[in-house]
């Protein structure tokens, strides 16, 4: 795994607790060791439109046409107003999530992240990822930018899978705001109990397959290419 992109980020370099000399970076990255110390990488630029958006846009267009034919213009506009309101409510939180993700990728010392959440962090790393996901405030607009930032600063697939899975299954945000009122306390508590072991298991399974499939699926390039 070549890390040449990472070493271009000069202002971030003094941010790392013990910055590695540039020529050491790619060498250290290769063994993915516990003590891996890397300068922060340049953040990946996100694209405003891509194939997943195209799929959704097509589905939306087809569905909107069906709604129009079934319910007429009124049906079309009432759904539109409702969803625009929803989107308006989400926007400020999305801004908070993106800013938080940016702070996380600038602030977290790479050596500590890869020690706590890296490929060799073991069971403890999965538990830390799980706890982090469970405590992270906000919705998808926070969790995914932060998870993505963790991937870029040295966390491995396993720990980030544990984090995302924990956020989605045992995070309090969605459970309190939606599940509890809609499905009731009894169901919610049972659901969370049955889900408690899942984040660590998912992270462990992720690591198991990552080690075996990373080369075949080109997953090793992910921090560089994606």
């Amino acid at each position, binding site marked *: 795994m070549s890390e040449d992109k990472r070493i271009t980020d000069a202002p971030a370099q*003094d*941010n790392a607790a013990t910055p590695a000399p540039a020529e050491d970076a790619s060498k250290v990255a290769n063994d993915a060791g516990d003590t891996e110390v890397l300068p922060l990488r340049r*953040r990946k*630029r*996100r694209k405003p*439109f*891509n194939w*997943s*958006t195209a799929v*959704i846009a097509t589905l*939306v267009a087809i*569905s*909107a046409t*069906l709604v129009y034919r079934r319910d007429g213009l009124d049906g079309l506009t009432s*759904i539109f107003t*409702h*969803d625009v309101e929803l*989107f308006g409510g*989400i926007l400020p*939180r*999305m*801004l*908070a999530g*993106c*800013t*938080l*993700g940016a*702070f996380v990728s*600038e*602030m977290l010392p790479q050596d500590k992240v890869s020690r706590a959440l890296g490929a060799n962090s073991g069971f403890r790393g999965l538990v830390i990822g799980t706890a982090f996901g469970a405590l992270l*405030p*906000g919705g*998808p607009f*926070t969790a*995914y*930018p932060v998870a993505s930032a963790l*991937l870029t600063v040295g966390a491995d*697939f396993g720990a980030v899978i544990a984090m*995302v*899975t924990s956020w989605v*299954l045992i995070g309090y945000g*969605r459970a309190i*705001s*939606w*599940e509890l009122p*809609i*499905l009731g306390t009894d*169901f919610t508590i*049972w*659901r969370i109990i*049955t*889900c408690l*072991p*899942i984040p660590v*298991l*998912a992270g462990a399974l992720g690591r198991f*397959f990552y080690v075996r499939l990373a080369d075949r699926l080109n*997953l090793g390039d*992910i921090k560089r290419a*994606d």
Partner: protein
Amino acid sequence: MTMRLAVDVILWSTVCIVGFFCFRRSPAIFRKAVKDGAVDFVTVIPRIAIGVIGSGYIAAVVPQEFITSWLGPETGWYGILAATIAGALTPGGAVIGFSIGAVALKSGAGFPHIIAYVVAWALFAFQRVLIWEIPFMPARFVWFRAAVSVPFPFLAAGVAMALGRV
């Protein structure tokens, strides 16, 4: 509503606290982070807008009965499989997934089925993967994560059965 306000307050407090420490370390890094965050936010807006504003239409054309009819109580592990697939196919946001679960539960679906349904929907509902995960995360990570998650709706349902909630 107050709960959601509380979550917002926690969220923005976290942003402010992390931002404060970032500023104290270096105002230059702080400015770079704020700019990076803002650029990410702006570039992702069109994708999220299409998804969120359009999701109501997708939800409106998928009949709820179609999904709940898969979740019958006496269907055993095939029913759990159906519930998992239904969860993955359920469009719309949090309200829709949980509401369908609630309706199915009231109309007599099995408890482990609804656990599997909610877990599958949380882990790999296609719409959340496409609208939220892919824009923010490396696509290959997202597919890998979803693939690794496949056994877990079954595990959760199994645990619910083992604990006596049938």
